[in-house]
């Protein structure tokens, strides 16, 4: 049984390539339970590939991906499904189903993984929509949602089964600065309220600093730095400092 001090996710020397393109080149990483971890890096650094390994959508060419004591690289589909039920994920575009309403999207996992009646599912979904500051939009057709609303509905769906880990793929991409701030505030509030582990993939260092307890940086397939926030901000590694320089005032 997993200990509360054990990392909830552990990557050990993960390698992944697509054809000749090396995307992950020996990435090792521990994600502590109940903390928010942000992985930053430029576009094409392999951030999305990294989280797809964590949720079992991709398998490493070599190395290990452990999630709560289960090696996702060698797990059966049944085991992976079991792990995924304890995961929520917010995709870049929300990945909402356009044929369903906003609320039906949120209630979707409840339909397949709980024995709740339709009215109970609706109640839970409305509760989660209220948590992301979207009360009363259960019946709104998904195509009528704005970009920010789609992200928040996606977040409500990600937390509807009360998962242990929620993974975010670029939660602020395509959003204006004000809406981005709203999403950041939501992530911080959710963490305080639900006490779950968040893994956030972002190219936005400002967001990482605002929300994360730990920050890592992926660069050309390597995790060049990974440390608690304050230590990360004081790093001496040139590549990390160069990446951060555009957006934050660095300590001397």
């Amino acid at each position, binding site marked *: 049984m997993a200990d509360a001090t054990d990392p909830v996710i552990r990557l050990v020397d993960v390698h992944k390539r697509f054809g000749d393109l090396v995307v992950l080149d020996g990435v090792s990483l521990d994600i502590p339970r109940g903390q928010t971890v942000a992985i930053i890096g430029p576009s094409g650094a392999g951030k999305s590939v990294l989280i797809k390994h964590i949720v079992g959508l991709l398998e490493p060419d070599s190395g290990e991906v452990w999630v709560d004591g289960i090696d996702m690289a060698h797990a059966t589909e049944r085991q992976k499904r079991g792990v*995924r039920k304890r995961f929520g994920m917010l995709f870049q575009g929300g990945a*909402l189903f356009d044929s369903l309403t906003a609320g039906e999207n949120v209630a979707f996992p409840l339909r*397949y993984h709980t024995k709740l009646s339709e009215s109970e599912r609706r109640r839970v979904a409305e509760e989660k929509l209220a948590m992301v500051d979207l009360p009363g939009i259960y019946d709104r057709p998904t195509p009528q949602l704005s970009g920010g609303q789609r992200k928040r509905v996606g977040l409500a769906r990600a937390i509807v089964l009360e998962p242990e880990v929620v993974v975010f793929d670029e939660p602020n991409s395509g959003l204006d600065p004000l809406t981005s701030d709203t999403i950041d505030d939501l992530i911080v509030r959710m963490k305080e309220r639900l006490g779950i582990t968040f893994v956030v993939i972002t190219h936005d260092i400002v967001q990482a600093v605002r929300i994360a307890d730990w920050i890592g940086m992926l660069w050309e397939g390597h995790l060049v730095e990974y440390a608690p926030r304050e230590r990360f901000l004081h790093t001496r590694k040139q590549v990390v400092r160069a990446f951060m320089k555009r957006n934050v005032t660095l300590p001397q």
Partner: protein
Amino acid sequence: MIASLGRFGLFVGTFARASLTHRPPVARTLEEAYRIGVRSLPILLVISAFVGTNLAFQGFYGFRSIGGQAFLGMFVALSGVREMVPIMVAAMVAAKAGTEMASQIAVMRSREQIEALEVMAVDPYWYLITPRFLGILLVLPPLTILSIATMLLAGWAVVVAQLHQNGQAFLGLAFGSLYTVDFLFATIKGACFAVIICLVSCFQGFTSERGPAGVGQATNKAVVYSAMVCAILNYFLSQALYG
């Protein structure tokens, strides 16, 4: 080519396993059956009717030169019921329902909705393909029979109203040359074509490239490959059933 066939084989295997290890999605199957059936029916009836009219014309003028107008009913019935209508229904359903399946699934692939299903621990093969598969399998055989009836009726109307031939003799010879198994074989062909159209179209959607170009390609390949495989299969089915 061999790699594509291998990927298709894997796809079919994964779909079969997903369908057999989950409860059948009854409500969504009925929705799909209704959607495929209702949307395809008008176009099928129009085309079947005009297949019937043209078979009647061609049969009449072809047989008249050798004095064999009496065989008109047999010609329309055998060529229409055994060959023309089943393959024409398959081509139309591939163009209508098959392209819809491929494009919907390709758009879902582009928008990460298939990955979202996987992360939500909902098997995408079961959720997306099983209801479409059962739905099309449920409606294509009856659509084929309805189209056959329309084709015969339209052929009879042309024989009587335009060619001024004996309608009763036409129907007598038409039904006299057909056996009950002909209708059974037509539904068997319909079921086989349903399987091909669904699996080929869903495979194209599942394996599409992301973006609008990928959706377009998947839709195009779905109709081209489905129609081609159905035409080839039709030859072997006719050999097996009537040979």
